C-alpha cells in the first residue's frame, strides 16, 4: 500500500511504527545490559544496583518510604511546589508578557531585569533567596517560580510580537476596540507560543526542583534523592531519578496534549 510513498535520496524516513519498535528494542536491550552487568558482577551494587533491586526499592518506597515519607508523599510535596510555582508564574508572566509585547514602554522597563536574571543558574541566586525568604516553602516555590517566569514571559512576549500585523489591522477595519483586539486577536494569536513557553517553563521548574529541595526540605523527590545519596543508597537514587523522569515525561505529555487541543492551527 505504501507504494505511492515518496522516494528520498537520503532514505531518511522509516515508518513511525518501525521507529517505535526500534526504540522499544533499544530500551529492552539497555535494561538487559544493565541486568547482565549487575548479575555477572561487572559492577558493584554500590555503583549500579541491579534492576531487580531498584524495582524492589521502588516497592519499598511506595510501601514504607524513605526519610520519613512514602514515595507518594515525596512526589506530592514536589508536585505541590512545582504546581504552586507554575500557577503563580502563569498568572504573572502571561499578563506581563502581553504587556511587554504590546507596549514598548513595558518592554523597556522590564527587559533589563528579566534578561539579566534569566541566564543565571538558580543555584547561584539560591543563597540570596534563602537569606531573604528563609528556608521554608516560600523560598522553594519562589526559586522554582523564578525559573519558570522568564521562559513563559519571554515566549508570551514573542508570541504577541509575532501576531501578524495584518490580523491586527484587519480587526481594526472591522471596528475592534483596543481591548477587543487584545482579547480576540492578540491573545489567541499568541496562544501557541504562550503554551510553548508554559511547556518549557514547567520543564525548567522541574529541573530546578532538586535545587529548591536541597536546602532544608523534609519531603520531596529531590530531597529524597539527595538524602539517599548521603547514605550511599544508590538504589533509592536511581529509583528517584526514574520517578522524576516519569513525572517530567508526564508534564510534557500533558502540555503537548493541551497544545494539540487548544491550538490545533499551530504551524498552519
Amino acid at each position, binding site marked *: 500500500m505504501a507504494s505511492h510513498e515518496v522516494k528520498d535520496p537520503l532514505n531518511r524516513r522509516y515508518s513511525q511504527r518501525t521507529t517505535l519498535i526500534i526504540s522499544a528494542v533499544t530500551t529492552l536491550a539497555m535494561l538487559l545490559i544493565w541486568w547482565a552487568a549487575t548479575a555477572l558482577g561487572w559492577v558493584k551494587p554500590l555503583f549500579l544496583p541491579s534492576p531487580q533491586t531498584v524495582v524492589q526499592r521502588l516497592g519499598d518506597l511506595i510501601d514504607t518510604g524513605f526519610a520519613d515519607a512514602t514515595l507518594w508523599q515525596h512526589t506530592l510535596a514536589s508536585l505541590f511546589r512545582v504546581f504552586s510555582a507554575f500557577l503563580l508564574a502563569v498568572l504573572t508572566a502571561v499578563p506581563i508578557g502581553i504587556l511587554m509585547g504590546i507596549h514598548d514602554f513595558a518592554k523597556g522597563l522590564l527587559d533589563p531585569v528579566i534578561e539579566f536574571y534569566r541566564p543565571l543558574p538558580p543555584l547561584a541566586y539560591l543563597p540570596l533567596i534563602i537569606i531573604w525568604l528563609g528556608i521554608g516553602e516560600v523560598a522553594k516555590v519562589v526559586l522554582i517560580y523564578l525559573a519558570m517566569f522568564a521562559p513563559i514571559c519571554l515566549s508570551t512576549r514573542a508570541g504577541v510580537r509575532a501576531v501578524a500585523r495584518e490580523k491586527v*489591522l484587519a*480587526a481594526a477595519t*472591522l471596528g475592534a476596540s483596543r481591548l477587543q483586539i487584545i482579547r480576540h486577536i492578540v491573545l489567541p*494569536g499568541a496562544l501557541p507560543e504562550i503554551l510553548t513557553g508554559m511547556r518549557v517553563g514547567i520543564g525548567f521548574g522541574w529541573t530546578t526542583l532538586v535545587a529548591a529541595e536541597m536546602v532544608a526540605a523534609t519531603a520531596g523527590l529531590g530531597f529524597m534523592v539527595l538524602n539517599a545519596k548521603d547514605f550511599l543508597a544508590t538504589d533509592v537514587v536511581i529509583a528517584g531519578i526514574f520517578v522524576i523522569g516519569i513525572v517530567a515525561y508526564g508534564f510534557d505529555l500533558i502540555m503537548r496534549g493541551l497544545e494539540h487541543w487548544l491550538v490545533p*492551527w499551530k504551524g498552519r
Partner: protein
Amino acid sequence: MSRIELDKVSVVFPASRHTEAVTALDKVDLLLEAETFATVIGRSGCGKTTLLNLLAGFLAPTAGKVALDSQPIHGPGVERGVVFQKNALMPWLNVADNVALGLTFAGMPKQQRQDRVGTCLDWVGLSGFANHRVYELSGGMQQRVGIARALAADPKILLMDEPLGALDALTRESLQELILELWQKAGKLVLFITHSIEEALFLGTRLIVMTPRPGKIHKTYDLSFSKRFLAGESARSLKADPDFIALREEVLEVIHPRGGDHGEP
C-alpha cells in the same frame, strides 16, 4: 458622502541597510466619490498596495494629504472595509466566526449575526463550510472567506487588494458579478486592485493605471462596461466589443511597453 481625496501624496520608504529608499508613491492626486468603482492596475511594485494602505489608514503619507469626507485619515476605520492581498484570517476561528468578526466587535446579537453570516457565505459559495477551520480550506476558498468577512461588516467603502487572484476562472466570474451587484445596490465606493487588465476594464467605472519608479498614476479612464453588464449585456459580448479590445491593447502597451525596459518583475 464617502469622498476620498488625495492631495499631492508621496510615500517614501527610507533606505535600510540592504535597500535604497523607494518612492512608492510620488505626488499622487486622486479624487474618488461614492458610487465609484475604481480599479487599479499596474506592474508589480508600482505602488498599488501602498495606495490602498493609505486609504485604509495603515500608512501615513510622507508628504501630502489623504482625506475622507474632508477629514484627514488617521488610522483604520470601520467605514473602510479591507480585503487583503495576503488573507488575514484568524486560524483559531472557524469560517463562520471569521466572517462574523466585525459583527461580534459591534456587539450584534447572535441570531442576527448567524443570519448575516449565512447570507455572506452564500454569496461567496461557501455555505457548506461554515464550521470548517480556515486552514483546512484551499487558498482560493480562504480568499473568499476574506471577501465575505469584509462584506459582512457592510462598510461604506470597500478596499480590495487582488481579491480574486487565486480563484479559478468560473468562481472568479461569479464573484465579479457579486461584487458588481453589491456595489450597485448599496452605492458603495470600491477600490479594486487587480493584475488582470480584462478584469479591471470589465469591473471599473474608473480605471487607474499606475507606473512604477517612482509610483505614479499614469492615466485614468472612465469606463461603462460594468454598467452595460449590469444593464443586461453578456460578459462575453462585452469582452469582444472592439472598444474593450482597443482599450485592453492600450493599457497593455502602457504597462508593458514593447521594447521597453527589462526591469525586474
